[in-house]
C-alpha cells in the first residue's frame, strides 16, 4: 500500500470542505496534482497544500492507497466522503460528514468525530476510537434510506439519532447511545454496549432490523411489546464476529447470555426487534 501523509498546518477558524481527502480522488494522480486539489473554505476555492503539509506516495489504484491525516481536524468536513476502497487513518478529532456515503474501504479515526459521520454509508468499515456526534450512520434530510451497508464501530459514545432510517449494515456503539437510536430503521443492526437512551427504535418498521442492548436501557417505548426471554442462536453469530474479528472483546461475555425480546414499533405496525441482555 502506498502511504500519503497530510499534516494540518493550522486549525481553520471556519469549517473547510475536504471531500478531496479521499483515496478515490488521490489515487492515480501526480503528487503536484494532489497538492493542488481544491478545498473550499466558505465560498473561496483554495488548494490542499494551503492547509496541509504533504509527503509520501500516491498509488495507481484506489485500493492500494492509504492516507494518514494528522492534526486538530474538528473543522475539516467530508474527509473520505464517497470513498470506494483503500484506507484513511485520522489521528485527531475530525469534523462533520466523515465517510459520508462511502461505499468501500476503511476509515480509522484515532479521536472523536463530529455529527453526520458515516451518514448514508453503503459499504466499508468506519472505526472511531473516541466518541461520535449526532446522526451517526444516519440519513440526510429528505432521503428515504440511511445506511444501506457497511459497518461502523464507535469505541466511545454516540449522539442522538444514531442509525436513523437504517436499511442495512451494522452500527456498534461500545459506550452510550443518545436518544432516538434506530429511529425509523427498516433493517440493519445496532448494538449498544453502554446505556441506550430513551426513544430507542421509535417508528422502526421491521424488515429484519434489530437493536441489541447489552447495557442499561433508559426507557423502553410502551409501543414495544415484550415476547419472551431466550438464547437466540443467531445472536451468537454476531457476538462471535464482534469478539473474534472486530476486536469488540466485551461481546464475548454475552455469547451464551439470554436475551429479552421485544417487538415494535407497534405504533406504526412495525415488526422490528429489540433484544436486551437479561443476564
Amino acid at each position, binding site marked *: 500500500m502506498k502511504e500519503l501523509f497530510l499534516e494540518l498546518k493550522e486549525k481553520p477558524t471556519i469549517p473547510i470542505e475536504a471531500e478531496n481527502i479521499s483515496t478515490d480522488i488521490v489515487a492515480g494522480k501526480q503528487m503536484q496534482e494532489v497538492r493542488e486539489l481544491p478545498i473550499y473554505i466558505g465560498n473561496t476555492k483554495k488548494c490542499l497544500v494551503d492547509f496541509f503539509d504533504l509527503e509520501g506516495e500516491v498509488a495507481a489504484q484506489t485500493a492500494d492507497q492509504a492516507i494518514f491525516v494528522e492534526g486538530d481536524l474538528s473543522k475539516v468536513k467530508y474527509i473520505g466522503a464517497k470513498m470506494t476502497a483503500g484506507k484513511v487513518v485520522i489521528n485527531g478529532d475530525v469534523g462533520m460528514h466523515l465517510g459520508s456515503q462511502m*461505499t*468501500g474501504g476503511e476509515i480509522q479515526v484515532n479521536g472523536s468525530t463530529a455529527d453526520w459521520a458515516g451518514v448514508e*454509508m*453503503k*459499504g*466499508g*468499515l468506519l472505526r472511531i476510537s473516541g466518541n461520535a456526534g449526532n446522526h451517526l450512520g444516519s440519513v440526510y434530510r429528505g432521503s428515504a434510506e440511511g445506511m*444501506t*451497508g*457497511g*459497518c461502523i464501530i464507535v469505541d466511545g459514545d454516540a449522539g442522538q439519532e444514531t442509525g436513523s432510517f437504517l436499511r*442495512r*449494515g*451494522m452500527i456498534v456503539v461500545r459506550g452510550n447511545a443518545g436518544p432516538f437510536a434506530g429511529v425509523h430503521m427498516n*433493517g*440493519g443492526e445496532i448494538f449498544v454496549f453502554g446505556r441506550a437512551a430513551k426513544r430507542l427504535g421509535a417508528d422502526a418498521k421491521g*424488515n*429484519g432490523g434489530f437493536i441489541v442492548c447489552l447495557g442499561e436501557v433508559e426507557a423502553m417505548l410502551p409501543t414495544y411489546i415484550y415476547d419472551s426471554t*431466550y*438464547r*437466540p*442462536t*443467531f445472536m*451468537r*453469530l*454476531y457476538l*462471535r*464476529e464482534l469478539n473474534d*474479528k472486530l476486536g469488540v472483546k466485551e461481546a464475548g461475555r454475552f*455469547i451464551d447470555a439470554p436475551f429479552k425480546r421485544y417487538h415494535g414499533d407497534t405504533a406504526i405496525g412495525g*415488526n422490528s*426487534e429489540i433484544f436486551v441482555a437479561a443476564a
Partner: protein
Amino acid sequence: MSFNYNGVEIEDTFAEGFSMWGSRIVITAANRKWANIGATTMTGFATSVIACDCEAGVEREVPPEKTPDGRPGAAVMVFGFSKGKLSGSMLSRIGQCVLTCPTTAIFNGLPKEEADEMLDVGKSLRFFGDGFQAKMRMNDGWGQRARFWRIPVMEGEFLTEEKYGAKKAVAGGNFLLMGRNEAATLEAAERAIEAIHSVPNIVTPFPGGLCRSGSKVGSKYAFLKASTNTPFCPTIKHAFKESKIQDGVNSVIEVVLNGLDEPSVKRAMGAGIKAATQVKGLRKVTAVNFGGKLGKFKMGLKDCLEVT
C-alpha cells in the same frame, strides 16, 4: 489380472462411479448429543437411490471452534440425481428431521466459491414460519455477505442459512472385501471405514458404511429393478454358474462411498483398501463395475492405492 498388496490379492479392476449432485450441511446444536441426533436422523433411509430419494451420510463431527455459532456440529452430505431432486430431498429432510430436532441450526457447508450452484433451500424452508419468519443479513457491504432466516418454533427459534452450495459430485465408489470368514471380513471392512472417514469430502451412506448384500441391476422377476449380487454370494457359489467366489472365501462385504470429487473418492478408496489388507484372513479385494457402460468415472483399484 491381479496384483498383490500386503499379501492380499487385488483384482486389477475398477469401481464404476456415476455423477450426482452433492451438497454439504453443517448441523449445530446446544450439545454434541443433539447435533449428532439431528445429523443421523437427517441421513436416515438414504443408502441408495435404488429405493431412497437420495443418498446421504454424516461426513464428520465438527468441533465448536469450527462451526459458525460456536456450538458442536456435524457435517452431513446429501446426493441427488439432479439439482431439483437434491434440493427437494434436502428441503424435506431438513424440514422433517433437523427443524424438528431440539436446539439445532443449520449452515451451508459448501461455500459459493467451491459450489457449481447455490440452492434456495433455506429460502423455501422459511415459509414454515407462516409469515413470522425473519430475514437476517450479515456483513452487507463490508465482509463476507451472508443471508439467513430465523423461523419461530415452539422451543425457541430455528436458524437456517438461505442458500446451500451444490456441485457435481461422484457416487458409487466401491470395493468388495472377500474374506476367509465373517469375522475377518467384518474386521477388514470396519478398518476400511475408519480409514475412509479420515479423508475429507466423503460419506459412506450404507449402515456403518457397509453393504453386506451388494446388489446387481435387474432380477429374474420383472417387477424388481435390483436384486442380490449373486456372483458374490458365497452360500450359492456352486449353485450359480457365474459365481466369482474363489475357494477359501466365505464372506463378502461391499464398501460404498460417495464424494464431492473424484480425487477424494480415489484417495478414500485407496486408504480403505490399505487399511483392510492389514487384517489377516482377507483373501481378495475387487470392485463392482458394469464394464464401463453406465458410469462416467472409472476408479481403478491400482490407481487408488497409488494416489493414497
